[in-house]
């Protein structure tokens, strides 16, 4: 079995070792680029959201590389995300590709377990041992990646030269990918803390703090969000995304951080009484949390045409005006340009700076 899964930034760094330890061969496509996007745009329906187009383009690349099984997380709920797997599979089959579609939903969980046992040639004890080893390794990788990301986000606004933490972060990701065992990862974690601590500072003590909320794929994947975290960091802003690859995996896999999500949902109920998908409730709730924690602004990032994100926008605006916290809504599609986003971010940040000076 040569399995492929939709590409989502650093999530691959943990998913790949998990699947490989379980015994599957994994096809990991190169990170998305213009070519992948163009393939996706050409094949996908025009008004689908950009995560659909990118993952579709990526799946084409995976199939070209020889994948024979496509693994999707899906669910039949109101949001379009639930249909990604089925619709992409139909588009790809109509193109003439042959593959097996493995949809992971709550109903097909037994099938997935059977699949894992099958990978260990039908032996349950061996599958259990492998699964234990796989998830331990995946967990450590995810934690290490999360640490690297956190250190990067914290160091960037204070760094004398932005290139330094950027290079450090890139090398950190490469090293996480190369380290094969848990002990190496623990050592790597210590190294990372020390290395980021040695980055030369620019003297800034209390950078502006911005909460990044929105649709999960857009928040996590830098190719889609046009490096919004890096750009804000270079403008001197410490960004705190409400969702990271680690939190995404941890929550969806093992309900890690559930208390946080429950708290956000409870707060969001003042404005939003029903979750419709696209992290609408979560965005609202984390926005309120950010306002209460004294953040300087909220950036809401979502794909163009995302239904839940569109309807939650008015509620976000109302919440932000109630709490008196600046709000920037960024809608992204395949035509968005990094320069355009940068201009908007610069204006937003200079407004935040003026605001802080006024209140001081």
């Amino acid at each position, binding site marked *: 079995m040569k399995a492929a899964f939709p590409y989502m930034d650093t999530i691959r760094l943990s998913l790949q070792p998990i699947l490989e330890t379980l015994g599957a061969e994994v096809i990991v496509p190169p990170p998305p680029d213009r070519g992948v996007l163009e393939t996706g745009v050409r094949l996908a*329906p*025009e*008004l*689908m959201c950009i995560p659909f187009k990118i993952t579709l383009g990526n799946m084409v690349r995976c199939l070209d590389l020889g994948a024979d099984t496509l693994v999707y997380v899906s669910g*039949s*709920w*109101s*949001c*379009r995300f*639930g*249909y990604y797997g*089925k*619709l992409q599979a*139909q*588009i790809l089959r*109509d193109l003439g590709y042959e593959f097996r579609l493995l949809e992971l939903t709550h109903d097909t969980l037994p099938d997935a377990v059977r699949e894992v046992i099958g990978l260990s040639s039908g032996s349950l004890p061996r599958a259990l041992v492998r699964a234990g080893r796989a998830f331990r390794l995946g967990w450590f990788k995810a934690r290490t990646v999360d640490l690297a990301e956190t250190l990067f986000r914290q160091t960037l606004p204070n760094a004398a030269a932005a290139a330094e933490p950027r290079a450090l972060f890139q090398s950190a990701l490469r090293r996480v990918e190369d380290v094969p065992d848990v002990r190496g990862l623990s050592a790597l974690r210590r190294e990372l803390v020390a290395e980021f601590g040695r980055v030369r500072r620019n003297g800034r003590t*209390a950078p502006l703090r911005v909460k990044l909320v929105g649709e999960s794929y857009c928040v996590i994947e830098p190719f889609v969000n046009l490096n919004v975290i890096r750009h804000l960091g270079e403008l001197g802003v410490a960004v705190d995304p409400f969702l990271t690859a680690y939190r995404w995996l941890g929550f969806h896999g093992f309900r890690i951080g559930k208390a946080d999500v429950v708290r956000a949902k409870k707060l969001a*109920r*003042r*404005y*939003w*009484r*029903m979750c*419709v*998908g*696209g992290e*609408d409730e979560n965005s609202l709730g984390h926005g309120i949390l950010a*306002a*209460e*924690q*004294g953040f300087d602004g909220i950036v809401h990032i979502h794909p*163009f*045409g*995302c*239904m*839940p994100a*569109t*309807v*939650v*926008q*008015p*509620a976000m*605006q*109302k919440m932000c005006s*109630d*709490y*008196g916290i600046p709000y920037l809504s960024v*809608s992204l599609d395949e035509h968005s340009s990094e320069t355009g986003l940068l201009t908007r971010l610069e204006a937003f940040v200079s407004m935040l700076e003026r605001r*802080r000076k006024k*209140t*001081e």
Partner: protein
Amino acid sequence: MQSAEVRTARLRPADFQRPVVRLYLRVPRTIGICRALDAYRYLARWRSFFAGLGFEVVVSEPTTRQTIELGARLAPAELCLPAKVFLGHVLELKGRVDALFLPRLVCQYSGKDLLFSCPKSLALPDMTRALIPGLESAVELVIDEREEPEEQAYRKMAKVLTGRRQKSEGRIENAEVRPRSQTQSTQRVRTNPKSKTQNPTSPDAGVSPLGYQEAGQSKVQNPKSKIGAVSDPVRVGVIAHPYLIHDRVLCLDLLAKIETLGITAVLPEFALRPNVRLDGRFRTNWLFEVELVDSAEAMARDGIDGLLLASSFACGTSAVTSEVVRRELAHVRPGLPVLQVFFDEHSAEAGLATRLESFVELLRMKR
């Protein structure tokens, strides 16, 4: 630098403490229903329900250009046109009624399948409240059959509206027949003997079985009865949501335009016989979309000459279903001409007319 404590002190505005279920200090007398979105399906039921409870029902006037403008000015730019128009209707009704009716249809059973509404319709009351202040007295109907049957939801709303002492049991009217098929819950409501005895007639029952003509103004007849009588029997299937195609201003009078071109439009609600579900290979879980995909397949098998996919721009569900329909039809009827039209507040009549004319010309030539 400012500390976090100072900042949190001025947070938490008082109006957050608003209760979720509103208890009415003054019992509302008039209730306003917006002639938009789900009303095109359920208007007759809602109207007779509220009338049966003793309220005066005010239905907003048919959509005008001004309604669209009102809504579009207020709504986020990426919202679909019908939802913008809904907001326009809310603005027009606001102040004219004691309580505004905001439906939230979450999911309903159809046979064994749980079918959902689109996300925008799920979040409609929340979005409306966030955009338009002063809707505290709005009454919300939440139909979520994962939690309770449809009938129970109506009962709950009746209790909130009338207070507990007044008996609202059995007032749920059966004025409406769902066009696709009788879902379990509808049957349950219809076979409830109480509802027939206690409130036997409603002003709308039987007048418009689909509730469409009443909500919209388009004069729709069952085109199947016309077949054979017309000299030029070119038939084009129109796959569109009822709230789009039956709102004459929204869809720029698409059906009338088709009629003036001398061809017959077949609508989804007439393409499907009740209780018949085709097993398309691609199933969606959206209430409206299941019907559209099934009827497109039925039309194609029925031998229509062309298919017109009409949807509003940024309609998320139709982005999926249009694709599904096109791919399904490639198997059922390869080479069937398909025209896709999007509507938004900037759509112009002339552009639509040109596209329609050339499409019809193509259909005639193909014959």
